[in-house]
């Protein structure tokens, strides 16, 4: 892909991830701290279309800009730690073990490690592992549902984009 086209695509993907991140704030969720993690869809799309480096660029820029949109600057630390950890895990699963994991599985793993990253940061900031223990069980169950859903969405987007962009995925 031409460089300019790639930059434009990444910019569009990041802005889409930001919009998804923003609107999911309006969607009520059952458990405190649980989120749909729709922005994760765009991370997986980038991972599939471009690769590891680009996916991490999207994750990092989204993690820094997302909390600024939402209004809390301290949120950057949480979203960065969760985003980077889940991005790394998903990259390893997708690029190194494609024959063992489905997109839904990879997405679920991403959601799980996003939660782990955030909770570890929170535990570190508050100085007690109690936060991790308290929130993890609920968030893990939520991750199973949202991860499956996000994986499904990613798969449809990739089918569509793959045909339109004539990109080999």
């Amino acid at each position: 892909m031409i460089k300019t086209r790639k930059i434009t695509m990444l910019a569009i993907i990041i802005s889409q991830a930001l919009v998804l991140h923003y609107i999911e704030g309006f969607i009520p969720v059952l458990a405190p701290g649980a989120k749909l993690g729709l922005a994760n869809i765009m991370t997986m799309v980038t991972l599939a279309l471009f690769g590891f480096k680009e996916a991490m660029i999207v994750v990092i820029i989204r993690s820094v800009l997302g909390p600024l949109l939402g209004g809390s600057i301290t949120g950057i630390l949480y979203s960065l730690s969760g985003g980077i950890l889940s991005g790394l895990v998903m990259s390893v699963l997708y690029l190194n073990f494609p024959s063992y994991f489905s997109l839904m599985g990879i997405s679920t793993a991403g959601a799980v490690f996003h939660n782990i990253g955030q909770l570890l940061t929170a535990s570190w900031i508050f100085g007690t592992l109690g936060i991790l223990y308290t929130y993890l069980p609920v968030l893990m169950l939520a991750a199973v549902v949202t991860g499956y859903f996000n994986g499904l969405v990613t798969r449809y987007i990739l089918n569509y984009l793959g045909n339109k962009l004539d990109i080999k995925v």
Partner: protein
Amino acid sequence: MIMDKFMKPKIGDLFIYLFIVVLIGLSLLGLRTMSIDRSNTVVQIQLDGKVIDSYEISQEGEIEAREIRVDSGQGGYNIVRISSEGIAVIDANCPDKLCVRSPNIKVPGQSIVCIPHKFVVRIIGESQGDNAVDDTAS
């Protein structure tokens, strides 16, 4: 359908779900051990601002009574008694004996102080439920 090779559930997914189950189990276990920790409190003895001794006591059941003699230098001493009735200083050779006359302490946050000997015995640990009010009151 180019992505079909990623569509069907695969063997690795099972490991992810297994991993989740293990994580949930571990964190429930962690939560359990933490709440056990919370029911234990520690009696801490300080001399001149430094912690010289600490004893773990359980809030449930009987506490084996014991007396601890703390020498604060220059012949000064305080004798602390830890028992089910709480913690008390039963004897001391300080001039004012305020520490001996202090009521027994039982709740985390309370302390007995002997100013002449720069001696403090206090109960630390997270208090539970109603005790929280006593903490600030005492």
